[in-house]
């Protein structure tokens, strides 16, 4: 029963208006930076905005996007991301992601970490995510 309940946590995390699925964190060493990825779906009838992120795993947490410019790859902070009704924000490699900067501890494969996403309408959503080396 406990196994079933914990499995449910990883499959899907729903709350009023926002559903978070397929979440994972990339493994990394202590003091390093890494990223949280997930599919964030707006299941409400109004546009919502992701405006803040937090996590006990890192000293600094930000929403970032990876960009390509003149053949070079870089990252920049994004202050807010709007999600229209029925649309899904894909936090994924080479795209938008939650940056976990300066990790307080090493994150090894199969460990679990927590990230909180703050939305203007849906409020704070705590998400537990498994640490993986890479999604296949």
């Amino acid at each position, binding site marked *: 029963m406990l196994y079933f309940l914990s499995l449910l946590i990883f499959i899907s995390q729903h709350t009023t208006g926002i559903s978070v699925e397929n979440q994972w964190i990339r493994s990394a060493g202590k003091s390093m*930076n890494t990223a949280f990825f997930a599919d964030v779906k707006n299941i409400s009838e109004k546009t919502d905005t992701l405006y803040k992120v937090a996590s006990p795993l890192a*000293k600094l947490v930000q929403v970032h996007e990876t960009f390509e410019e003149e053949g070079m790859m870089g990252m920049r902070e994004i202050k807010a991301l709007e999600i229209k009704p029925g649309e899904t924000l894909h936090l994924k490699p*080479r795209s938008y992601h939650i940056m976990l900067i300066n990790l307080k501890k090493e994150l090894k494969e199969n460990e679990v970490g927590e990230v909180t996403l703050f939305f203007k309408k849906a409020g704070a959503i705590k998400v537990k995510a498994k640490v993986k080396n*890479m999604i296949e």
Partner: protein
Amino acid sequence: MKYILFVLVALALISCQSKFPEKEFVGESSAQLLDQDSVSVNFPKAYRGKILLVSFIFTNCPDICPLTTHNLQQIQQKVKKEKIQNVAFAAISFDPKRDTPSILKNFAEVRNLDLSNYNLFSGKKENITSLMQAFHIVAIAGDTTRTDDGEPVYFFTHTDRITLVDQEQNIRKSYRGSEINLDEIINDIKNLED
């Protein structure tokens, strides 16, 4: 008969060149680097006679460099599975101040890298800069911010590349590092092996 032989040799040369349009010698840019075990290595000279896949990374990179590292790992696994001999892999940090050998070692351990023919390198900034020029790699530090306790945080905008170097230390082809066509790279390695 002589004419037919001439045509066959010319066709073989053209076919070989079309597979690898690049040929740029990097052996003369060799410089001393330190691997993840703090062993000094003359790079790339120490790899002469081997097919070498090279990437330039920084371990604080949360997105592109882990993808490149993982892609080199995938190529390494496929090379092993197909029993292709004499191939080596190298990831050189363009952030040597932070990426000391022990940090590189930890980076490898966290990602379960097989270090039997895959090395991560740090070293003197000037040596790394000279290798970056030889491999046409650019990395620009920027977007500096600070954590709440005042620690500086900076990232690099950088070239996203894996470079294929032949046994004679010539660059033969470059690929995007964070997104690869595994079959294309394996075929290229096999063509160099011939």
